[in-house]
């Protein structure tokens, strides 16, 4: 396998992992924000 092919595969795996992690991370932040806003509504 050439160096380029290996790098391409690593790039794809890394990218997918990072994008999934990013969606999870920002999803958590948004969830937290919505929860806080919902709490604030109650007051």
């Amino acid at each position, binding site marked *: 396998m050439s160096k*380029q092919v290996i*790098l*391409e595969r*690593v*790039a*794809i795996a*890394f*990218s*997918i992992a*990072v*994008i999934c992690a*990013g969606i999870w*991370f*920002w999803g958590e932040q948004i969830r937290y924000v919505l929860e806080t806003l919902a709490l604030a509504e109650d007051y």
Partner: protein
Amino acid sequence: MDLYPFFDWLDTSMLADISKAYGGVFAVVQMFHLLGMSMLGGMVLVGDLRLLNVLLKDVPSEQVIENTQKWFTVALIVVMTSGIFMSSAVAMKLYYNQMFWAKMTSLALGVTFVYAIRRPLLKFNHDTIDPWTIKLLAVTSISIWFTVAASGRWIGFS
């Protein structure tokens, strides 16, 4: 791996003496941090938007990548040096700040991505790389650096 000793050391280092005592010095360093961030963002966006075929379509993408990489490194050095100084002022607070660690994690991922994956891969002729892989690289790069900057801003709010 616990980095507590490092933060403990940073908190009492000479850097911290300066950054805590002189609000003005802190402000000036933070300005360089912002200017470095702008430059870093510009280089990332021009490079990645070229890879996504949005900008500078008639300039070979190899050329765009080569030109933006050099200044990306300059910007990264400015941002990191000023960042270390800034963190010395609030080292212990940062150690317990979740957003700070999110930022450091994405920064580490970003640096690994740029120097170990994106740069070596894009040294090859771009025509020989699958176009979807190139687009994926660009999206990943923009996402990582956006997260680094945005979580950094959020440290100030939290």
